[in-house]
């Protein structure tokens, strides 16, 4: 049985299992129908031209893992930013782990989507926001059909969340192959501030496929700082789709660090629905072996006087492949838009590949839009300069990689996270030098 057939036929069992009159019952039914019609995307679709899911869809994934899988804190502690200084919403094989989590309902909600879906007090929020910006595409629909678990974050107006929130999905490998579909709903009220870190981490070599969907609503003057850490092992694949709805004067920054995994697809969609919004999309991708990362970004400028800044840096070694497909749409009403997009890549080995495709669709006449894309190799003169000072080739390359990625790293606003990412990058490049000034 194909994975598609398996999923479609499992839906009835999944649906039966849930409580009756769920507020999203109808949405789910429609979503599975849509998925059944469309199926998984193929390379025939323009947006998937450079990324084939074939190799990861052939595994016989378990869709309903054991609900009792657990991990020891000692084993996973290193994946947390802090023991105490963060809120944590932790899932093990897609199931909430109260033991590893640190949730709160004090003046805000940092908890589970499953409980928000089932408790009447959250019903209004669910009705107002759930699946409201998620687009009808086959993978999002598939996630919506099975949407039950994930993070639910509601920050009321004027609330400044004092510590970062970590959303972490662990997979244990207890199942021979596992598919999980986290669904996160994040609502950030007027003038509220929040920092969120999202991570997917497999703990064994068994294949894992994660199809994650996140909806983020930034109300008027809200500030959202979102970090995605993708450093999974070589049998873990991730399809991450994030939708961000921005209202007037809101600021949203998403940093994506893609440092591992077998196949990673990032669909990052921004919708600027109010004036004076600011959107930042930045990413560092460092790949080796046969790893593949596909960044598919969309910024839709709908209202006037908004800005968007994109800066994606990629370093590709061995036979790794990267895709950057960045689309900026400036609608007719979105006058005085400033939209900038930058994508720079270094191919460390001859056999690495990058496909870059910037797309600008501009329907307004008074806008500033720019895009730049480069694909190159290390600057030999710069390498010689560093080596002539006694810095060995590997360390010199590392320094240059770090410098190359620094325009992205410098805007990471959580110092401990920045330190961790620096360490991850140093480890990735295989050097032991401190990059900090």
């Amino acid at each position: 049985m194909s994975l598609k057939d398996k999923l479609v036929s499992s839906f009835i069992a999944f649906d039966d299992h849930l409580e009756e009159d769920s507020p999203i019952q109808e949405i789910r039914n429609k979503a599975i129908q849509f998925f059944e019609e469309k199926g998984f995307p193929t390379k025939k679709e323009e947006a998937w031209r450079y990324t084939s899911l074939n190799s990861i869809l052939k595994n016989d994934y378990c869709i309903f893992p054991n609900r009792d899988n657990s991990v020891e804190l000692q084993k996973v502690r290193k994946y947390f930013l802090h023991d105490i200084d963060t809120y944590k919403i932790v899932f093990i094989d897609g199931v909430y782990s109260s033991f590893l989590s640190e949730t709160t309902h004090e003046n805000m909600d940092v908890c589970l989507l499953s409980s928000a879906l089932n408790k009447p007090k959250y019903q209004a929020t669910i009705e107002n926001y759930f699946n409201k910006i998620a687009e009808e595409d086959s993978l999002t629909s598939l996630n919506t059909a099975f949407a039950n678990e994930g993070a639910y974050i509601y920050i009321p107006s004027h609330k400044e969340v004092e510590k970062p929130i970590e959303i972490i999905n662990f997979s244990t490998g207890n199942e021979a192959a596992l598919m999980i579909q986290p669904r996160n709903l994040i609502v950030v009220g007027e003038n509220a501030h929040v920092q969120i870190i999202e991570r997917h981490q497999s703990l064994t070599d068994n294949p894992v496929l994660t199809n994650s969907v996140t909806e983020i609503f930034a109300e008027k003057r809200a500030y959202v700082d979102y970090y995605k850490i993708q450093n999974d092992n070589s049998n873990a694949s991730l399809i991450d789709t994030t939708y961000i709805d921005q209202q007037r004067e809101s600021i949203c920054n998403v940093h994506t660090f893609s440092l591992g995994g077998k196949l990673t697809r990032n669909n990052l969609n921004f919708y600027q629905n109010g004036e004076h919004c600011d959107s930042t999309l930045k990413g560092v991708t460092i790949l080796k072996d046969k790893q593949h990362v596909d960044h598919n970004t969309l910024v839709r400028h709908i209202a006037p006087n908004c800005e968007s800044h994109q800066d994606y840096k990629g370093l590709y070694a061995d036979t790794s492949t990267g895709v950057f497909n960045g689309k900026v749409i400036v609608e007719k009403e979105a006058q005085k838009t400033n939209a900038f997009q930058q994508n720079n890549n270094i191919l460390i080995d001859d056999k690495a590949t990058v496909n870059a495709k910037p797309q600008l669709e501009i329907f307004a006449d008074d806008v500033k839009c720019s895009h730049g894309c480069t694909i190159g190799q290390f600057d030999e003169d710069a390498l010689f300069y560093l080596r002539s000072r006694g810095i060995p080739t590997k360390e010199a390359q590392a320094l240059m990689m770090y410098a190359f990625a620094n325009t992205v790293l410098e805007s990471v606003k959580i110092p401990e996270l920045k330190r961790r990412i620096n360490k991850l990058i140093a480890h990735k490049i295989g050097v032991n030098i401190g990059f900090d000034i």
Partner: protein
Amino acid sequence: MLHIKDLHASVEDKDILKGINLDVQAGEVHAIMGPNGSGKSTLASIIAGKETFNITKGDLTLDDDDLSELDPEERAHKGVFLSFQYPVEIPGVSVTNFIKTAINENRKAKGLKDMPASEMLKLIKEKADLLEIDRKFLSRSLNEGFSGGEKKRNEIFQMAMLNPKLAILDETDSGLDIDALKVVANGVNKLKSKDNAIVVITHYQRLLDYIVPDYVHVLIDGKIVKSGTKELAYELEKKGYDWIKEELV
């Protein structure tokens, strides 16, 4: 200390150096002068180990080490330093971060541990003061947007930090106004000792008023055609290079 014998080098089958002979002893300052395209910068790059040039013949040794067998970083570990004519801009790496990495990599090569942070800071402060370098300058990206003078000052700052056995200054005077020239030359002079040697490559005699050479060599068409004392530099300044070329014919 530096021993060069019948050195031939080429780039893409084009011969650039055609039999260089040069001996530099500890405590000496040598100047190499010559017209454009004579091979001065090539000689500097070859000593530092730039891989675009091939040594086709001859010896290049520093004390007991055959430099031609060593990578650029290994040469640096042995005490070779090249002050670049055109220092490379490296955005995103601060001067401080760069020099710290360089110092610690040199220490690592000698089997020493990283320099303690406090000691490093003290050393940076001391050497920055020597070259009248503003503290703010040290946190800027390496050479990015530096003026010509700032770049050269930064090169000599690195020399001061690394304390090399053999320093080659490739056109360190170009792009410097007279005040900056004095500061840089003064820095170089303070770094001079009986244990190290300096090779100054320059077009003009001007720099040699401040860094006084023990020997002056004239490099024309890949060969050292004339050597003398500092008076030779004055003669060249007055008469140009043509009289030497004529002498050769």
